[in-house]
């Protein structure tokens, strides 16, 4: 098991100064890896300063673990160098592919849940873990389409993947909810299907409801449905490091701290029960 870091927030440039000035009651920050894969300047300056005050985890979007392209050695080397610099509690990325034929779509593209995909992913995750010298966390992504070829459910796929690759999971509760609407499954069945001992972190975020499906926008407060699913997730998983991921329409820090207090309250209530 990894350590429980408590309740964290995504580290966003809008909040750099407020964090350093006010030292808000946040247990850890999650930094977007790619924002800091730069030679120098402001982003790394603030990352170092905030790291000296808070625990940190790194969360990437470009590992492209599911791509059929070879792993990007330059990216891995840059990631490892950054990890050596800031010594994160862990490194995470997404269960997705981000491009083919040398092109990067800068999107978290969904994978089919097939044996072939598992056989492709397992050695790649192991290769990354061997390179970094530690287990990584793989996050479930939101998706708007599903493949005919899928042979199992998303949660069955994640469970098998984490066991076979010996990796950990970053469970995005918002993404579970989004996919449960988009692909019409019971989100609680998803939560029940995830191996408890593999989940090292939870993400919470907001989304945008379309007429018949949901887009995972990370630009709004967490919805009541996601809070309710989070509470039921805590019932099953117990205390797990939890963070709120806001990527657009970034509000003042106080607003996110208030949301974080809701998460604390829900888990406190769960612990008391």
């Amino acid at each position: 098991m990894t350590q429980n870091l408590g309740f964290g927030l995504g580290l966003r440039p809008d909040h750099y100064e407020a964090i350093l000035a006010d030292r808000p009651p946040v247990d850890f920050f999650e930094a977007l890896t790619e924002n800091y894969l730069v030679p120098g300047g402001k982003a790394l300056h603030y990352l170092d300063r905030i790291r000296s005050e808070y625990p940190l985890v790194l969360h990437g979007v470009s590992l492209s673990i599911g791509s059929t392209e070879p792993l990007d050695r330059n990216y891995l080397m840059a990631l490892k160098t950054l990890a050596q610099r800031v010594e994160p509690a862990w490194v995470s990325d997404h269960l997705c592919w981000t491009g083919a034929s040398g092109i990067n779509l800068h999107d978290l593209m969904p994978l089919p849940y097939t044996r072939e995909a598992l056989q492709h992913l397992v050695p790649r995750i192991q290769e990354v873990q061997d390179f970094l010298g530690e287990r990584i966390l793989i996050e479930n992504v939101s998706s708007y389409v599903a493949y005919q070829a899928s042979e199992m459910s998303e949660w069955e796929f994640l469970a098998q993947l984490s066991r076979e690759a010996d990796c950990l999971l970053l469970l995005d509760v918002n993404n579970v909810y989004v996919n449960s609407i988009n692909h019409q499954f019971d989100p609680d069945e998803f939560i029940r299907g995830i191996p408890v001992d593999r989940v090292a972190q939870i993400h919470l975020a907001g989304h945008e409801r379309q007429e018949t499906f949901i887009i995972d926008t990370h630009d709004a407060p967490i919805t009541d449905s996601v809070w309710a699913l989070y509470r039921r997730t805590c019932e099953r998983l117990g205390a797990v490091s939890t963070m709120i991921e806001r990527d657009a329409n970034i509000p003042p820090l106080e607003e996110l701290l208030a949301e974080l207090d809701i998460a604390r309250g829900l888990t406190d209530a769960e612990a008391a029960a």
Partner: protein
Amino acid sequence: MQLRELQRAFQARILALEPGIEAQLKDARNADFGARLDAYVRGYRARLVEALGTTYPVLKLTLGDDEFDRQMRRYIDSTPSRNYSVRHYGAGIAEHMAMQDTGGVGQALSELARWEWTLADVFDAPDDAPLDVATLAAVPPEAWPGVSFTLRATVRRFDSETNIVEWWRAANGLCERPGALAPSPAAQWLLWRRGVKTLFRSLDPVEAAAFAEAHSGATFGVICERLAQYADEADVAFRAASLLRGWIAEELIAQCSWQDIEQ
């Protein structure tokens, strides 16, 4: 279809709107299937337009949201991203703008894009320590003609032939806005970072010539020879020393080196 073909087909649908992936996806006959697929197809372009707007805020302001969107989508459709970081996407915008029919201001818009790309480049260039003035004090007098300089990694030079720097400054509330983007006398600029703050200033022709020599690794002696083209011989050493002091005070120089001279 195997994973590799599946990914290539999906990518071809996003980049070139080529049909094919639909047959591999569930619920393709549902009424909302197009909107779901669009979350990827339109999302790809929207994300890159947004990233380019972050790199080129004044170009966006100048063109207006709609025209910026149109121009960037043209660029996106001709230039897929090949870097893991979206920060590096957009290196070709200056060239792209130069080729567009933009009502006679193509050169200025291209120059503006090149300016904003240079600012971005300075913003996250490597951190290195500025030269300590005490290091210079250690240079033996007879070694001075052979002293050469390494500039800080953030230092960039920029040549303009339009009023885009004034335009950019106005867009950031630093001066009155010129009436229009227009050609202007050739000017040379110096951009660099001090700590995390990006700075720039103009260079007069004499300093520009001397700085170009320093930038290329020329020795202090060669810099003086270059200055002799502009100043009286008696003033050259004073002018060169004065420029050097200024460059050090502005933290433009990282290192100096010289060869020991046998006595």
